[in-house]
């Protein structure tokens, strides 16, 4: 009993373990709050964090190995034409992704990488902001 009392009295005066929500309370105007820089700093991210995926459309060769190993079936192939030849490119559905990093490891051209970025909330699970490579897909996909 006295062990915990000692500990709690120590904790009463020491730095708190929790950190406040980035925005203090619900602000009247979010834009104004952000502009005034009143945000509480978020927790720093460690090195080597498996965060959001980045996809390099140009170096991809469309081998489809990433699709094969993806455990969540988050990667979809679609047909494109590169020059004269038919090839394939991918889109990644972030809402399905489990961030295991298998696709990053297996990619022979290092077209898929992971960045240290974790803020990926969105209103629509399949919205364009949560699909990596959706812009290139709209541009290049061959539709029948």
């Amino acid at each position, binding site marked *: *009993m006295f*062990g*915990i009392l000692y*500990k*709690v009295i120590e*904790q009463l005066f020491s730095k708190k*373990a929790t950190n406040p929500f980035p925005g203090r309370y619900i602000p009247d105007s979010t834009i104004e709050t952000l502009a005034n820089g009143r945000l509480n700093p978020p927790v720093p991210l*460690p*090195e*080597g*964090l*498996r965060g959001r995926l980045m996809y390099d459309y140009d170096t991809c060769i469309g081998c489809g*190995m990433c699709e*094969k*190993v*993806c*455990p*969540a079936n988050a990667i979809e192939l679609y047909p494109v034409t590169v020059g004269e030849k038919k090839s394939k490119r991918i889109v990644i559905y972030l809402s399905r992704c*489990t*961030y*295991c*990093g*298998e696709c990053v*490891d*297996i990619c022979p051209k290092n077209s898929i990488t992971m960045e240290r970025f974790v803020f990926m909330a969105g209103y629509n699970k399949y919205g364009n902001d949560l699909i990596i490579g959706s812009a290139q897909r709209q541009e290049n996909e061959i539709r029948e």
Partner: protein
Amino acid sequence: MDKTITYPLQIGPTHPAFKEPVRFSFKVEGERVAGVDIDLGYTHRAIEVISKERNFIQTIYLLERICGICSVSHPMAYCMAVEDASGIEVPPRARYIRTIIGELERMHSHLLWAGVAAHEIGFDTLFLYTWNIREKVLDCLEQFTGNRVNYAMLTIGGVRRDLTDDLIPVIEQTLEYYLEVYQRTSEILLDDQSIRYRCEGTGILTYDQAVALCAVGPTARASGLAKDVRVDYPMLAYPDMDWLKPITPLDIGKEPAGDVYDRMVVRVLELKQSVDIIRFCLDNLPEGPIASINGSIKIINKLKKVQGEGIGRYEAPRGEVAHYDILDMSECPVQMKVKAPTYSNAFAWVPMLQGSEIADIPIVIASIDPCIACADRMTILRDDGATETLNAEYLHSLSVNKMKEVKSRCSG
């Protein structure tokens, strides 16, 4: 007034004391439990069936998500099962790294359990304290593997990330921190009077009951049954540690009573043991490759040519987890079976709860560190809401038929 009235009390499927859905039907006399029935099956997700449609690499990540806390134990047992079936060797360095990951996970799981147990008896300060010091090992794991849970570290035949030289000091610091706080933590958890009031003498599982009900892990060890897969079964780096032995309350000179307090003792002592094991692994980390086959596609291609069956056993924080896999010239496991520790320990709930007070129910249920999501293997759904009891003969005939089917597929 000698007539005692029993009335039914349902706890679950959702209840503040449970972290996962499970239903208990009690018969209560006043504050005393007169009868108990357990109803599992509310989180059945058909993992074993799903795994048949995913290739060997995808299955690792699927199994990682059987349970969020032992997210290394299940893939570890699975990888060992597949390696057993296919004869893929694991390089020594990978074995050591696997051991380190597993022990770090055990530390965070035991600290998490201590917090949950404290919350069940209304001791929220202790709950927040243990979860606060648990942050340190989670941070360490995050730096090491890139994620706080679901580490994605294992692959068949090795590990995916190396323990680089700049990571070793991070782990060393974490161990240093835990040795520092260990004294205080064990004092608070084991010597606190109000915890002793609540935990001593509640939820007793005797040695004989533990043997008869096949209890595993800390639940069995607290009853004095010295069994630990890490010691009993050669795997990973554990055979190199001849000093390793199962932890029972005897280690602090206490006769094992098999109550909740003893389970706490075992888990607290295992924290220290994990620190020692990780120390050993860091000191004796061998050089060499971290995986015997490079590239997931190569692994799948190799396993495509394998026919056979394998068993993997690993000591999860909650007890023994065993995986059984059948490989049959295909890129998916033909058949797999998961035996989770809670599956063995769930039956121990009945003798523990019989005769206890209502106030003891949450802490007794939490004391085996249940992982319902691991244990749920079957659920019966009927549209008309009819209930049905499956008897032993029916289940036996089901398994016999299933085995025949699997065998004919393997040989044919």
